[in-house]
């Protein structure tokens, strides 16, 4: 197989190629596309999805699925703001993230206990908790926007990592919250690749029964997986606040299928055992690019759905077709005499 063919034979490869193609077309239609500012813009727009996606990737790698992550994120962000406004202390911004991650981990623990402890199906549990967490948020915590966010949050959201001028003289800036994504990505990559825990996650995703037989404490590992995923979702929620400078309890929920689509485009398999941090980030990048740049070239927004739908299907379907063709060709290439 040629190098190109080999790339085409993986879902990530297809997705990557489509993304490149897409970018080229966009660039032809709108030359302003090929500027560093576009990249920064995409990085900013894909921030929250990216953080969510990393948590979801770990869950997928363990053979589960998590649709409750957005509800956890929304709950954690809103509760954090309530708590901080309630205690009225000047906390550093790191404390905000710690609180949000802790709350997220707490909600993740509920998922984990139900899934690991009771052994319930992950889709069912997270469907339930998606509804449950969201209902709890709106019923008990409130339904009004918090626009008077503390000064620390505003300051943090004004902290800029890179600021460059784009072609038409406007400033495009990468907010400091991008560091949250970077940090989560690095930590998760280390966990998944270099720790025993990460290996166990992939093992469970491969075969739960087998993992149990060799003495992996599945329950514990699973609880841990959902706690970590919850903490990551909490961080995503808090990041969302620093980007929008307000806490809207209605935000975030509704994007869960989008996040899962990104993770899957990034090569994680819904059947478990597979998934990488880098692939996931690529998937998020592609989805974000499609979601935010079609408008730039004047394509109506409904096309986005259409294009993403195509991409998911093509990205998972083409590798299989190529694989079949390659197999057929290999078989045909063999001499008739054994």
């Amino acid at each position: 197989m040629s190098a190109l063919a080999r790339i085409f034979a993986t879902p990530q490869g297809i997705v990557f190629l489509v993304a490149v193609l897409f970018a080229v077309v966009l660039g032809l239609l709108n030359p302003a596309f090929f500027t560093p500012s576009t990249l920064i813009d995409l990085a900013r727009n894909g921030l929250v999805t990216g953080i969510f996606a990393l948590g979801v990737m770990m869950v997928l790698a363990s053979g589960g699925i998590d649709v409750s992550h957005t509800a956890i994120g929304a709950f954690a962000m809103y509760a954090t703001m309530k708590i901080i406004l309630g205690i009225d202390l000047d906390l550093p911004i790191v404390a905000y993230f710690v609180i949000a991650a802790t709350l997220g981990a707490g909600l993740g623990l509920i998922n984990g206990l139900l899934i690991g402890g009771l052994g319930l199906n992950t889709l069912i549990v997270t469907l339930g908790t998606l509804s449950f967490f969201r209902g709890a948020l709106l019923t008990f915590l409130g339904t009004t926007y918090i626009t008077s966010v503390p000064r620390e949050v505003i300051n943090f959201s004004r902290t800029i990592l890179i600021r460059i001028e784009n072609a038409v003289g406007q400033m495009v800036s990468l907010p400091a919250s991008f560091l949250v994504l970077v940090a989560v990505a690095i930590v998760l990559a280390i966990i998944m690749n270099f720790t025993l825990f990460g290996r166990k996650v992939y093992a469970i995703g491969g075969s739960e029964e087998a993992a149990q037989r060799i003495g992996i404490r599945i329950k514990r590992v699973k609880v841990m997986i959902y706690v970590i995923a919850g903490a990551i979702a909490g961080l995503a929620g808090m990041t969302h606040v620093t980007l929008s400078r307000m806490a809207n309890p209605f935000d975030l929920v509704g994007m869960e299928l989008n996040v899962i689509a990104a993770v899957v485009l990034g090569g994680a398999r819904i059947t478990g055992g597979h998934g990488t941090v880098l692939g996931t980030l690529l998937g998020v990048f592609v989805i974000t690019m499609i979601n935010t740049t079609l408008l730039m070239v004047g394509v109506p927004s409904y096309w986005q759905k259409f294009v993403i739908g195509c991409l998911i299907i093509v990205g998972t379907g083409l590798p299989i077709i190529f694989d079949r063709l390659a197999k057929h060709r290999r078989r045909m290439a063999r001499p008739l005499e054994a």
Partner: protein
Amino acid sequence: QDAKHTIVTVVKLSGIAWFNRMEDGVAEYASETGHDATQVGPASADAALQVQMIEDLIAKKVDAITVVPNSPEALEPVLGKALDAGIKVIGHEASSLENVTYDVEAFDNAAYGRHLMEALAQAMGGEGEYAVFVGHLTAKTHNEWVDAAIEYQKEKYPDMKLVTDKLESNEQQQTAYQKTKELLRTYPNLKGIQGSAGEDVVGAALAVEEAGLDGKVKIVGTSLVSVAGPYLETGAIDMISFWDPAKAGIAMNKVASMAIAGEEVTDGMDLGVEGYNEIKLDGKVLYGQAWVDVTTENMDEYDF
């Protein structure tokens, strides 16, 4: 005019009759003036999607953005960013917006709310239980209408009684229908419903008709003939009011053009658009007198 301006109108939700009509006005303005005036809107009435669209427009460096926000507060930061980038921002249905160059309102919201309540009270004979719908509890305009209406009722029609908090329809006919049904069961003596979003009265009318209560429960609210027509015809809806979104679209774009050109907008000025012939300027907000009432009798005059 030699300079060609790029003006983009960002609406709450694309595809619904109301904003399609506004798009007609925007297109009319574009063809009359030669400016590049267009309209965009998200697929669901979500402030976050609007924020994203405006971010993109800032990146595209348009000359002016006119916007009908789903949630004014949610848009403040991004609109501020637009102003910083030298883009003129014209609001609509959002008199509370701070980060705008001007805000164009078809009318004073309180006056309009009182007007609707007057119509409902007339239909109900000045007494009985009623309920009110808003599109979203966070939609400023709807709340201003309804708040003024309720206040007006308390003052002028003490025999009328609001049965429950403002109901939220999410601007969906199905939600309005469902909640009206529940309302009818919970408050069997209900006699009136006032809607705010264009879908509210339609959903309410369907529920009322199914309960065999048409004629007994009066329905008044903001909508369009193309949406509420079938129910106006049968009398399930007593009266709808609206301001012509096309005219509002033209007025917004006109104000945007003036702002780009650096022209001043003054109290009592004539924008040259029907209903906006003598505007009232209050700070950055300018009000017209552009409401239209429609009943069975005059519904044929409107085709949108």
